[in-house]
């Protein structure tokens, strides 16, 4: 009979989760590079970049939000180790999305940028989501976690607001009744629902069975 070392297998699981988080986090850049080298980015590369980064930012926000409910449901506690990396990767793509708009699309035309933020609700909402992510990214270090203590958790609940703003931004930006933004909205609704205390404890009970 083979003796399993619980500490060792936990370390292995933690490593696997971390590697998976990095693979997923770098996948959008790899896909972009592949497309660039292959067929290119098409007739409007700036628009293609903005859409690519924006879509992947939403995907990573959704995956980050899915970790806690999945952990409850499966009892696979190591999943939580992917949260910070994926959250930071989400911030990376939100930043690239915003910078592409700022630099390549608008080329620092501040008056037009300001007009966009002030007058176009979908941009207002997207910009707000970006701003709210900044303090979360800044306080993602161990030092800040220690210093903020209980307030760190409170602060990081802002990600729920960010998720809602992000999918509204996506929905308002799309013409006609495309299904993908509606799917993203449904996903956020489900993931927030999973955090309602009664739902959360039921998920945990299901996980233990």
């Amino acid at each position, binding site marked *: 009979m083979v003796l399993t070392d619980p500490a060792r297998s936990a370390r292995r699981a933690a490593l696997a989760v971390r590697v998976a988080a990095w693979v997923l986090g770098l996948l959008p850049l790899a896909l972009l590079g592949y497309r660039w080298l292959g067929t290119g980015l*098409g*007739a*409007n590369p*700036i*628009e293609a970049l903005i859409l690519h980064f924006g879509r992947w930012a939403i995907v990573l926000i959704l995956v980050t939000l899915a970790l806690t409910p999945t952990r409850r449901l499966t009892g696979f506690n190591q999943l939580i180790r992917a949260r910070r990396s994926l959250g930071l990767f989400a911030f990376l793509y939100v930043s690239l999305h915003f910078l592409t708009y700022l630099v*390549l699309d*608008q*080329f620092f*035309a501040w008056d*037009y940028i300001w*007009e*966009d933020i002030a*007058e*176009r*609700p*979908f941009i207002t909402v997207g910009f707000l989501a970006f701003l709210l992510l900044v303090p979360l990214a800044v306080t993602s270090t161990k030092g800040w976690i220690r210093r903020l203590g209980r307030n760190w958790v409170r602060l990081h609940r802002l990600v729920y607001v960010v998720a809602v703003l992000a999918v509204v931004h996506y929905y*308002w*930006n*799309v*013409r*006609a*009744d*495309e*299904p993908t933004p509606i799917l993203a909205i449904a996903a956020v609704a489900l993931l927030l629902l999973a955090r309602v205390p009664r739902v959360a404890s039921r998920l945990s009970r299901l996980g233990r069975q």
Partner: protein
Amino acid sequence: MLIRKPDDITSSEITPEDVYLNRRSFMADAARLGIAGALAPALVGAAAEAEAEAASAQGRFPARAPRQEELTPFEDVTQYNNFYEFGTGKGDPYRNSGDFKPRPWTIEVAGHCAKPGAYDLEDFLRPHELEDRVYRLRCVEAWSMVIPWRGFPVSRVIDRAEPTSAAKYVAFTTVVRPTEMPGQRGRILDWPYREGLRLDEARHPLTIFATGLYGRDLPNQSGAPLRLVVPWKYGFKSIKSIVRMEFVEDMPYTTWSAMAANEYGFYANVNPEVDHPRWSQARERRIGEFRKRPTLPFNGYASQVAPMYRGLDLRRWY
């Protein structure tokens, strides 16, 4: 021989005096650019001169310099499209339109006219000499292209149909074929796609039915076999794959304005002053260029078409 000016000619169809006086320099430019040969001699009248005048109206070119703007590459024109019948992504129409069969094709002319009827595409086209026209295309999403279309003025078709005095508008309809058009299998839009023009807009010499671009037949993703091109309006007015045109009395139903009336008006004239709620219309990105350029009123065709809208509040009738 007495040449009489027809009574029904609108002021917009008359060549402006300065263009008329400059026609020799236009002819010289056109010849240098090699486009004169492609134009039917009869058409080196109002329409063609109007087009050249449109370019010079931008004021960016000295009077005798070549006026033609750089054409958007064929690959970009045919691989970057909004044609929701084939999908909502810009590359979808190019990728998903392979199964579409633009022939055989029938076009129905209906409504308030003396000669309604259904025509095979060949019969519909036969009476018309095709000409090449280089037009700017401006999308409401704030990008633009310069496209060499092949086609003929819609006014020719209207003249043949002999609309009655009740006809105030022309309504156009796109084909519905979910088996060949995968985008139509979902309810993304209220199919069939419909558009319309005021009768005088449809009659304007700049308004054409296009059957081709870059000297060849229209590819499926560009609206084969027959589409409208109205260069001073946002791209969505230029309805593709037309199966029906109807002369109507009241302002017709149009897909986008029905979908979001606050965003898409019936007129949809390119206007840098009136913003779309989601996209500033003050500037545009010409496909292939890095920096945005200012958008011109009526997409640069103001001197030809603005008279049609005299007295119309363009903020209200956007």
